[in-house]
């Protein structure tokens, strides 16, 4: 345990504990009467908190645990709200958070933040990002060290409750302006770091944070409920189980989504090299008349894309036929017409672009100069990738949506969504690929940094492969 030095509160005479000595400590707050004293001004009383904290769970002051394999002691904490509040009751879990002040003998001060069921570890940084975040707006890109960050939110944080020793004077209802930017994660790496800017009345500070996947057991065992000073073993076990279970569920879902994304990529990759065509229609077409009609349906036609129709004259001599294909419900929407066929050249491959919505098509066979019996074997095919493209698209969108709901790696999922839509557009209108590809690379390179550029380039190569 940390070494203790005890002094008494000038207001209620209760003992107050220092968990370490430092010239950086500004205030100490009495755990019994909530009176805050200035350490640097001979323990002058500053202010007193009278907020109700019943039922709020927090880690006990003095708890020692490890983060990043470094031993830290919880020496104080501040509860913040994102608006002036008289009580935490009625606020939802994302509207207030606890910021623990940590101290390590080797690493100095750091912060552990608990918000909405998750823990984050922050430490102050003195190198500055570009541009500075004091005027940053949502979705702005910030460059810090070798990473790019996207501004997620800006808000005012109001101190609601203060405990223990702090390196700054946190006064109830005092507010600081904060801007949070999250590192732009790509498909190949996800750091999920947070760069946080904080401006108070006296200074501007930057903090670098990262999520803690599983909090050290010593800290979890130190969790207790305010106004209930004795540690309850049962209670802490429950908290631990709840916390672990929430974390593991989240991890499980994230793993599942990652698996889906990998499977989609894997299937797409197989289909990319799969040249075998998928048969969507086959019919023997017999005619003994000068003009014959046949209706065929294109079921499961997913994408407006070129379809290959192979017509093969199986029977008949000296024939000279003319094929016309048009939508069955439209007399004027002719897709292909006047396709000459003859016995000298019995096989014809006709490419046409059917409408996505027109499922029934009319095929007319006209005799030009012969009335000989003719049998045509019609085989309509579609490349495999085109056929399953929409299925892949839907799976991707489901994954994207789930990823978005989990608010984890949001940028990566949005990137994937945009890239998928672009692939879809290019698949329908191939000529747009050059322009869209270049725009996409430019956009991701500027917005998402290195990972976005890699991702964009990957999709660009994929598009070119599909088209070539």
């Amino acid at each position, binding site marked *: 345990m940390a070494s203790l030095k005890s002094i008494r509160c000038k207001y209620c005479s209760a003992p107050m504990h220092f968990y370490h000595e430092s*010239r950086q400590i500004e205030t100490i707050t009495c755990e019994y009467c909530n009176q805050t004293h200035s350490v640097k001004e001979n323990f002058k009383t500053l202010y007193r908190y009278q907020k109700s904290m019943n039922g709020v769970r927090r880690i006990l002051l003095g708890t020692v645990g490890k983060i990043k394999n470094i031993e830290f002691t919880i020496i104080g904490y501040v509860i913040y709200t994102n608006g002036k509040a008289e009580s935490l009751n009625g606020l939802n879990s994302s509207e207030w958070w606890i910021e623990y002040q940590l101290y390590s003998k*080797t690493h100095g001060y750091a912060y552990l933040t608990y918000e909405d069921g998750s823990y984050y570890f922050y430490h102050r940084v003195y190198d500055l990002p570009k541009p500075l975040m004091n005027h940053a707006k949502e979705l702005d890109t910030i460059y810090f060290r070798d990473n790019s960050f996207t501004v997620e939110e800006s808000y005012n944080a109001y101190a609601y409750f203060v405990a223990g020793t702090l390196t700054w004077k946190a006064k109830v209802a005092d507010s600081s302006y904060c801007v949070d930017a999250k590192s732009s994660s790509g498909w190949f790496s996800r750091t999920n770091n947070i760069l946080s800017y904080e401006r108070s009345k006296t200074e501007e500070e930057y903090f670098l944070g990262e999520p803690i996947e599983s909090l050290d057991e010593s800290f979890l065992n130190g969790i207790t409920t305010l106004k209930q000073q004795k540690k309850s073993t049962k209670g802490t076990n429950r908290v631990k189980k709840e916390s672990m279970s929430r974390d593991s569920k989240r991890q499980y879902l994230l793993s599942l989504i990652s698996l889906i994304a990998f499977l989609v990529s894997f299937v797409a990759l197989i289909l990319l090299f799969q040249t075998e065509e998928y048969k969507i229609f086959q019919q023997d077409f017999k005619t003994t008349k000068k003009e014959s009609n046949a209706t065929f349906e294109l079921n499961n036609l997913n994408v407006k894309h070129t379809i290959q129709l192979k017509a093969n004259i199986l029977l008949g001599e000296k024939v000279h036929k003319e094929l016309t294909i048009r939508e069955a419900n439209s007399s004027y929407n002719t897709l292909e017409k006047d396709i000459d066929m003859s016995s000298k050249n019995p096989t014809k491959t006709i490419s046409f672009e059917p409408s996505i919505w027109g499922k029934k098509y009319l095929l007319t066979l006209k005799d030009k100069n012969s009335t000989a019996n003719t049998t045509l074997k019609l085989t309509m095919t579609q490349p495999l990738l085109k056929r399953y493209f929409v299925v892949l698209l839907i799976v991707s969108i489901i994954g994207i949506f789930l990823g978005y709901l989990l608010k984890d790696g949001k940028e990566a999922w949005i990137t994937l969504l945009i890239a998928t839509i672009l692939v879809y557009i290019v698949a329908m209108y191939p000529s747009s690929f050059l322009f869209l590809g270049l725009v996409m690379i430019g956009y991701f390179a500027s917005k998402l940094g290195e990972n976005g550029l890699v991702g964009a380039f990957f999709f660009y190569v994929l598009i070119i492969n599909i088209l070539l």
Partner: protein
Amino acid sequence: MNRLNCPQCGDVLNMNIKYSKLTRCNSCKSTIFLEDDALKNLGKMNLLSDEPSPLKLHQKFRYGKQEYLPIGKIRYAYELGFWEEWFVLDEKQKPYWISVDEGNLILEKSFELPKSEIQRLIKESRLSRTVTIQGKRYRVTERDEGVCQGFDGELPRAIRVGTKLNYLHLSSLEENLHITLEEEDGEYMAYIGSWLDIYEMELNNG
């Protein structure tokens, strides 16, 4: 001078004479000062207690692409604790100082600033004021004094236990640039450098 021996006990001294002027004999714990190529015994100084520190003497650490070797340290005390100044050499044997204070590490090297300018700044600068040094604006972030408690390893200058050190810390308003101005025993020194993120250091403390 290939080999240096302790004038007190005769044991071999591990001393990098290019930079080191002060060292401690591992055998008899005498403090040895190198003056005009002659060794002078300064007697025994206070041994420093072994306090937790991210740096360890003679254990290399890496920061970014650069590797550093700490070869000496001075400890200064102030009202509620202490901080340490570590003397380190980079891979090209260039000397630097790393100030270690409660997890805050600043890597600095000495830079030229007229004595009168250092004197004026230490005397006149007040906390939170902005001053201009060599065309750049700095904010005074700390102004205090410490008392030398002792040293360990090798140092490039002689120190005396109990000496007061007046110092001024200044941070650039535009970039990660820090200046330390010091006055110790009538000598004035200026250092410039940048803050190191301790979580980015590859420490070999095993």
